[in-house]
């Protein structure tokens, strides 16, 4: 079946512009996660959604970052007034439910470059 998809695969933007990154999770997966991977670093948790519960936003680095998940499916991560330090690969993952026993399936990521 189809895996997690993300678009665009690459995005170059000027400092100060807003960007939107999209994630399409695996159909039927109730949990969706966003992570950020800076150059040569591990993955840093940003936010996750579980069903209709309030999202866990504890990893968002600033109020310039926000995310929503519409209809329990597609998610959009928005970064306002982008800064050069926002340059990174943004990875989305989904799982059947939230929990360690449920594998998180990752998308291919969006590489964001802020010039």
């Amino acid at each position, binding site marked *: 079946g189809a895996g997690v998809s993300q678009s665009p695969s690459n995005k170059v933007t000027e400092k100060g512009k807003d960007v939107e990154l999209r994630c399409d999770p695996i159909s039927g997966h109730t949990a969706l*996660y966003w992570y950020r991977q800076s150059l040569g670093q591990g993955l*840093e948790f940003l936010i996750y959604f579980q069903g209709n519960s309030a999202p866990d936003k504890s990893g968002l680095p600033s109020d310039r970052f926000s995310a929503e998940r519409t209809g329990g499916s597609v998610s959009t991560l928005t970064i306002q007034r982008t800064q050069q330090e926002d340059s990174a690969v943004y990875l989305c993952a989904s*799982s059947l439910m939230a929990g360690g026993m449920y594998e998180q399936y990752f998308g291919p990521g969006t590489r964001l470059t802020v010039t």
Partner: protein
Amino acid sequence: AQTVTQSQPEMSVQEAETVTLSCTYDTSENNYYLFWYKQPPSRQMILVIRQEAYKQQNATENRFSVNFQKAAKSFSLKISDSQLGDTAMYFCAFWGNQGGKLIFGQGTELSVKP
């Protein structure tokens, strides 16, 4: 707060040989999960192996096995009969009772040489 540490930024191994990647973690929880993920140059994160902390038996998946030492908070990955396709970044990750998120180590870049 939980932390995951991978102390080997880079490693290399000859094809067909065995290599062990190290991972240590810190937590006060008793029930949790540990994972090894592989990230090839394509950026696609792939789950290699998973270990539940309450299971004493070490997990094994074909050529991949772990050495889980709960008291020492150590979780190493052994790759046997290394293949060129094993060349990738390997990340150790922890899941505890802090919600759905995984906590990742910094990664180990593994090169398999012919």
